[in-house]
């Protein structure tokens, strides 16, 4: 008997080829185990028998791609996740960033924006926000809309508040949001210097010179070759002495870009670029 799991992998290969050729989204180098789980769920949600039944929808369906991209790429986060990382940014990195007249920050794969708000709060409290420009990018348009709206479920508030204080927040966290109908709405002025953009790490290019890039818990969804591409993109985007923050279980070991960086925080996974930007 043919192994159903092997057949399913063939279906996924074909679906991803169709998505790429028809719509230009390239998920072929995403970590397969997680992608498989997501496509299985999408198949159930769309009431299809096989994952391959999604292929005609991808080819001919109207408006299917938004839900497909959403189903494949939506991620969840919390504010000030891993508070010790934000503590280090506050105490070690911000003083350095203050030496620049203008600070470009890229939050790559910002999902629903929790980290963007966390950083806006942090920069505001450290009195550097006025010269900061945050570029928050994601492949998922639905997530970006949510990030822009800045409205979150109240359930997360306790975690977010705890994280904020552990990250050495200086003010009172509840000054940064309003609560209404069990929803939390983030203060609008936090978004003053934020621009949200669609950007696909798998295919898109450098769009500005950055002083710091946050890309936390995004590389874990990518295969090693795609991780390599993205790290090269970050290397090309960062100014000399710029910083890169990855997720706490991600690393630049074995990557060709490793030699461009020195480790600032081993546990925090914060790196500083020591080589000049290519072409700069």
């Amino acid at each position: 008997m043919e192994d159903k799991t092997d057949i399913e992998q063939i279906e996924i290969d074909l679906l991803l080829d169709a998505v790429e050729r028809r719509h230009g989204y390239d998920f072929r180098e995403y970590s397969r185990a997680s992608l498989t789980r997501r496509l299985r769920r999408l198949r159930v949600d769309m009431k299809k028998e096989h994952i391959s039944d999604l292929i005609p929808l991808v080819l001919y369906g109207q408006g299917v791609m938004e839900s497909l991209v959403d189903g494949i790429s939506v991620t969840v986060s919390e504010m000030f996740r891993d508070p010790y990382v934000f503590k280090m940014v506050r105490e070690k990195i911000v003083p350095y960033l203050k030496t620049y007249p203008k600070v470009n920050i890229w939050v790559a794969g910002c999902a629903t924006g929790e980290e963007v708000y966390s950083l806006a709060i942090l920069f505001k409290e450290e009195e550097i926000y006025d010269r900061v420009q945050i570029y928050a990018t994601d492949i998922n348009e639905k997530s970006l809309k949510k990030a822009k709206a800045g409205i979150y479920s109240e359930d997360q508030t306790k975690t977010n508040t705890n994280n904020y204080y552990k990250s050495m927040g200086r003010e009172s966290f509840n000054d940064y949001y309003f609560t209404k109908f069990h929803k939390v709405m983030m203060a609008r002025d936090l978004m003053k210097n934020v621009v949200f953009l669609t950007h696909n790490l798998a295919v898109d290019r450098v769009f500005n010179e950055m002083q710091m890039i946050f890309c936390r818990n995004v590389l874990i969804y990518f295969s090693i070759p795609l991780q390599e591409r993205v790290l090269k993109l970050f290397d090309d985007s960062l100014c000399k002495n710029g910083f890169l923050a990855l997720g706490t279980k991600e690393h630049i070991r074995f990557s060709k870009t490793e030699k461009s960086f020195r480790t600032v925080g081993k546990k925090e996974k914060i790196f500083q670029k020591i080589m000049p930007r290519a072409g700069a």
Partner: protein
Amino acid sequence: MSLSAPGRFRLVVIGGSAGSTIGLPLILAGLPHDLRLPVVVVRHIAPESTWEFFMRRTDADCALTIIEPDDKEPIFGGHVYMAPPNYHLLIERDYTFSLSVDEKVRYSRPSIDVLFETAADAYGESVIGVIMTGANDDGAAGLKKIKERGGYAIVQDPKTAQVDIMPKAAIAACDVDRILPLERIAEALLELERL
């Protein structure tokens, strides 16, 4: 140590929750340093916890190397891999780990179901799944998947579990191969390794 080592089984996955702080070290202490089978563990723990305390306590009695795997790390025998807090731990078909921050499954991240299902996908009939004490039904669907793919299922005897909800749910979900008291689980794994 090699992935192509002979034997019917090539991977052990263990899931536990409430009560496993005491039970898990007991299983690990019963395994020799040259265990051919890699052991991968999901325990439900708070996001801010670290394994350091647990590992320091367990390391003394455990002959195997206990680590929290990084993303895309290859899987080797002689190791016990602990899912990091606040991440799902998944197994890829090329026998490496990957991590995700997807939504919680059964209110849990890491989730036992996620590990077991991806282990079943990657290793098929060569997986041994073990469900221990715990206070919810995470792991039951994953163990069922392991059985569907021809793997082997061991559940801690609910009578010897501190909290019996998890082992009972696993037993109800599929036709398990062995129901064992805690202190016999390591011995059973060694027997299976020789097959």
